[in-house]
């Protein structure tokens, strides 16, 4: 599933805690027209590159989409003496 929200928490030494919920779904909506345009250009470029023997250009598109769509659930939480950073794709 494609991540819809990115939750970020930053806690610094002074005890100030910042929690951010970044609405990724808005980003996807904004990027969709751009993506469709880029996708068409990439597809043409990929087909030309495929004919020239560079097959990876065409393969790279579904791989990038696949990685982006599977980011949901990724969690990184680093807690040091000075700072705590928490990031979760939801």
């Amino acid at each position: 599933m494609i991540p819809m929200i990115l939750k970020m928490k930053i806690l610094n030494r002074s005890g100030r805690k910042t929690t951010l919920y970044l609405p990724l779904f808005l980003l996807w909506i904004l990027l969709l027209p751009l993506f469709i345009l880029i996708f068409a250009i990439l597809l043409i470029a990929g087909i030309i590159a495929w004919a020239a023997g560079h097959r990876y250009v065409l393969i790279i598109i579904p791989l990038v989409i696949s990685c982006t769509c599977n980011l949901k659930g990724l969690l990184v939480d680093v807690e040091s003496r000075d700072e705590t950073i928490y990031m979760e794709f939801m």
Partner: protein
Amino acid sequence: MSAEKRKILEMLAKGTITTEEAERLLIALDASENMQNSVKTVTRPTPKYLKVIVEPAADHPEGERVNVRVPMNLIRAGLKWLTFIPKEVQGKVESALKEQGIDMDFQRMKPEDMEELVHNLNDLQVEVDDGKEHVRVFCE
């Protein structure tokens, strides 16, 4: 009572089979059911996440704590990038793995091999303790 057992008893009642034959059939049926049950208990759920946890040792509390949870689907997607590793680098990785006793050929790796690799990560459990930090890698 299962449908198979009922059928055997019906056949016995009608006289189609003898008592000994019915007994043999019931024993065979029980053995088959037991085998199916044991297979069910062996089957484990597919792990959803790979977790990496780093914790400082009790006598080094100033150390960093790290908790990383990577979805298995992201690992599956990431493994597909293996095809983009240049051949000369693949050769170096393969020879390094061979030195460790792991025979791996990236060129011949198929999607089903990748799936098997990810599925077998379920058994993965790495624990490293160097006195300062305790690192755990496991699937859940």
